[in-house]
């Protein structure tokens, strides 16, 4: 299989489809695994989650290899792999979102006591403006904690920030907003 390292992606994919020889995919892993890991690490800022992302991406790629048309002139294995990795990350976020939706559904329904009154509308608009004025990291942590209702640990997982960073972001944003509404 030493010669396989010199073959291009399309030939390796075709060979894998034909023979289901795992070595073909091992060559593709050697070629793109590190880049994928680096990207996963940049998003998650966490070694284990980046590793999981690479593993899941390759697992799905192998499972759905028949969907990749290596004979097409514009086929790009790296681009296809990145799309899968993107879905892996988004699916993870979606799972959290679904859980959040369930929690919301079990609590009171929307506008149980009628819509916001005029005063509240004005304050709501002010709060929205205040949030957009926050620096993006602070806003993200504040929204995840106060609006979406995630814990510090979950926010650390989502953002890749350390515990101290998450704590600082939330507390700074909260102080800033409370000062405005006092």
């Amino acid at each position, binding site marked *: 299989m030493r010669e396989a390292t010199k073959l291009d992606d399309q030939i390796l994919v075709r060979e894998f489809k034909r023979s289901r020889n795992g*070595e073909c995919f091992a060559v593709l892993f*050697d070629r793109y695994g590190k880049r994928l*890991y680096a990207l996963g690490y940049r998003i998650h800022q966490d070694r284990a989650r980046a590793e999981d992302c690479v593993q899941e991406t*390759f697992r799905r790629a192998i499972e759905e290899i028949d969907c990749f048309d290596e004979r097409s002139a514009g086929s790009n294995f790296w681009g296809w792999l990145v799309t899968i990795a993107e879905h892996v*990350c988004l699916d993870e976020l979606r799972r959290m979102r679904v859980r959040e939706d369930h929690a919301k559904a079990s609590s009171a329904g929307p506008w149980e006591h009628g819509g916001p009154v005029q005063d509240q509308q004005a304050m709501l608009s002010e709060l*929205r403006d205040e949030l957009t004025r926050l620096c993006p990291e602070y806003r993200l942590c504040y929204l995840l904690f106060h609006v*979406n209702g995630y814990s510090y640990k979950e926010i650390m997982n989502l953002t890749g920030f350390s515990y101290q960073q998450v704590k600082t972001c939330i507390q700074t944003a909260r102080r800033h907003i409370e000062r405005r509404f006092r």
Partner: protein
Amino acid sequence: MSDDERNLEELIDLLRRERGSCPESHVLVAYQEGALAPEEAAKIRAHADLCGICQASLQVVEAWQAARRGEEVGEAPDWQIIRGDLRKRVLAFASAGGKPRNAFARFASGLRGLLWRPAVAYIIALILLYPAYRGLFPRQPIEYPKVEGPPVPISAGTAATITLERHDVRGVEARPNVVRPAAGDRYVALQFFVPIRAVPNVEYTARIDGAAGIVVQAGKIVSMDRIGNFQLVVPRERLAFGSYTLIVEEYDRQKNERTATFSFLFEVVE
């Protein structure tokens, strides 16, 4: 909790209700790629401004889009440490043919591995071949043709008995089979021999043809022993003086066909 804090909590609750539910992932991807209509894009932007999870999703989409464009991917800490193990796992999955490793797949794979073991393959082959073996060598007792006495009880002095010799055997000069019933004989007992097959599903019939093809008597016959000696008792009044042919047929019920025919000629004379 102070009043200010309570007011802020209420406001956040209103915010939560107002922003609505999150869009699907593909909509976020389309938004990030600029593929949505302006009104739709404005809605998504308004929602994402108030939703941490959608902001995180958009950051993910942005990061992967940059990767697709070939931008610098950054550092890969500890890659050399985790690479070996990760590669093994990917290789194992690829070698399994990329099939999902659910419980059934694991069972099928295990079974496949087991089938390759010679001892197991031998046992399975034996199990599969057993019905054929039973068919070839039936274990049930052989049903020999039943030994029965003559269908009509005859007492001495009431039947004319004759042992018939076959006329259909090539190269054998058969003696003429002649029966001379006495005046008081009520029956004619025809004794003959045909080589029978002592196997189940084979039965024998006998038919006596008279002149001009008139059937005098016909029916199933059973051997008196396991070799093939038969005795056929015919009422005397059915046999007028003349020539007759006794035809014995072997019939295989399983194959549903006639497998052998034997014939005897005999004459009834005064």
